[in-house]
């Protein structure tokens, strides 16, 4: 079974703190993604990576950065957390295929609250 794990299910941080969210997948997927999910807005892509050390901005990258030093691990970093970054964060991974998009496998999510 494909497994995508996220470092925390629940996280509470204070405004201005640096926050690290970790995601690990065990299926040797090339693609990895970070989304945030807010009521009424669905999933919005923050960043994605299609290979080690490669990253691309998604739809809402402001206030976030990412790191992918190893193929199985994709980290989301909030340099200085703000209250409007309180959200559910979901990580996903997929194989890379030149001709078609493949199914994304999701982690359980991290519910981040910034006070």
């Amino acid at each position, binding site marked *: 079974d494909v497994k*995508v794990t996220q470092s925390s299910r629940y996280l509470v941080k204070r405004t201005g703190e640096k926050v690290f969210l970790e995601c690990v997948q065990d299926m040797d997927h090339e*693609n990895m*993604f970070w*989304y945030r999910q807010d009521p*009424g*807005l*669905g*999933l*919005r*892509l923050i960043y*994605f990576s*299609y290979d080690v050390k490669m990253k*691309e901005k*998604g*739809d809402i990258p402001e206030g976030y950065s990412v790191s992918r030093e190893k193929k199985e691990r994709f980290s989301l970093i909030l340099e200085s957390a703000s209250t409007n970054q309180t959200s*559910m964060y*979901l990580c*996903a991974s*997929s*194989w*890379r*295929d*030149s*001709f*078609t*998009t*493949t*199914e*994304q*496998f*999701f*982690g*359980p*999510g991290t*519910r981040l609250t910034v006070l």
Partner: protein
Amino acid sequence: SQELEQSPQSLIVQEGKNLTINCTSSKTLYGLYWYKQKYGEGLIFLMMLQKGGEEKSHEKITAKLDEKKQQSSLHITASQPSHAGIYLCGAEGGTSYGKLTFGQGTILTVHP
């Protein structure tokens, strides 16, 4: 950029009733994915449709992609409380990197 509109935004049904959720795209759909999410958890893949007119079924859930490839529907027959959750459609934008754009989700409640 591609936008997906889901309807209805929320749905409350009695157990045993049939229901349909729609997903409409502003552009041609190259690949349409349906996911289900239990509250507070990650997404579970249901089905993927690629060809115009394609229809797939799994247990009591059927998904269809229209001939013009701009609308998909998810139909649940004889709903059960286990069907409750958030249903999201996701669509490929035509790139080779596998990015998906998601609709805002439909919240389904099934009363026993």
